[in-house]
């Protein structure tokens, strides 16, 4: 994951998904991402390579 995206980049990504946030909305998102993205980056090195995902449930087969 790259550094915190700019307002323009966020706007393009949002509009590509049909969402039209205001500048104030995107500033609030940037504040979140500035904290979250470095922590998320650290996760990538945390998991042993052989670890499979915790799977979503299958009907009746979880327990």
């Amino acid at each position, binding site marked *: 994951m790259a550094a915190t995206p700019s307002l323009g980049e966020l706007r393009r990504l949002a509009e590509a998904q049909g969402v039209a946030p205001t500048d104030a909305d995107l500033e609030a998102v940037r504040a979140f991402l500035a904290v979250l993205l470095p922590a998320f980056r650290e996760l990538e090195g945390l998991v042993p390579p052989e670890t499979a995902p915790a799977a979503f*449930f299958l009907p009746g087969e979880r327990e």
Partner: protein
Amino acid sequence: MTAAGLARRLRAGELSPREAVQGYLDRIEALDGEVNAYITVRAEEALAEADALERAPARGPLWGVPVAVKDVIDVAGTPTTAASRILADRVPDRDAHVVARLREAGAILLGKLNLHEFAYGALTTSPHFGPARNPWSPDRVCGGSSGGSGAAIAADLAAATLGTDTAGSIRIPACYCGVTGLRPSSGRVSNRGVVPVAWSFDTVGPIARTAEDCALVLGTVAGRDPGDPSTVNAPVPPYGETLGAGARGLRIGVVTSLVEGADPRIAVVVTEALGELRSLGAQLVPVAPPLLERAGTIQQAMQFQEATAAHLEWLRTRLSDYGDDVRARLLVGLFLPSTLYVTGQRARRAYYEELRRVLERVDVLAAPTMPVLPPRVGEETVEVEGREVPYRLALIPYNSPWSLAGLPVASVPCGFVDGLPVGFALIGPRLGEEAVLRAAHAFQGATDWHELRPAPARRAAEGAALP
């Protein structure tokens, strides 16, 4: 009065269901203007249901007991607003599975309880329905997102309630309101008919006065629901039968880092509570689960995107109708890559395996439910030893470690700091609600923190039919 105690009085004929309902309606009328625990009160419907119940031949374990549910849980014919503008006019035509189970057991639905908008936050300060206020101190929040559920129990505005918990939303308000809450294991209780936050973590559970009440409600709502494939195919134990086994012989793993990381005044109260359990015969063992400090990040790697996916259509069409904080949080998920979600799922498995190994050595874990006191209404920071700490960042390390692993957690009231309730968390192995409830019940058998009530509830109880 506890739900279990009220159920016994009803069965004994000391009180009729109509009298029980009317008693709570009177209290709601007297107190809820101050507390704002309810979004919708079903006064006429509840009285009619009470009358119908008296004519019915079958008497279940909650026969005539007035209960209320968080306003993300569907009750047929009553709006499910989720404390939002977006769902303000939505009236479901079917009960949620858990509501149907409550009705089968004889419970009467008093109404729908306030929450943080869409259950996506821990303050219960909806801009659309107003804040639920802490009955112990009305200038403080009651936590969230099931804040109305916690406040209703503290102020005696229902005999028992249901909340939901994605990352602390049952435990936090139970703690801040001085009542008992239980987040069951993921999959133990059906989510059908419940507005989702994040499917991987959402769990319905009781907030009530005591562990016994939580056992009573959980035993009613737990179990496989063919209509919700996330529910587990596992028998539901008779929780009431093992409740009284006592604390003797229990091995309790004390999560030392979480005790030491809490406001020192809270750490003292929780340490004393654990000492009480030791005096009852439990063995306290310090534990240090690996990766604990990463649990919040791992949960968020999935939760943000699931919540955004659940709301995507409304983000496109009703964006300005969200409150500011919830709108920002929901937008975040638009900008996180799909690879992060898979990384989160892999990290979740690695984390769970580590925690499972710790839980093989003890019966339950224990930690403070919350490391800080509740913030004042309108504020999002709390003061700890002269420092301003962001409330949201303070709560994550104490709640995500258990919801990420899908484990059962009870919050048990255990004292006060500055006149505000403090609670400790008991965490069990997967599907191990029995051990959690047993330890909580043993503690409540030896202490009276769960019996204390805030001033408004004491005032309303004076001269009322329901003590």
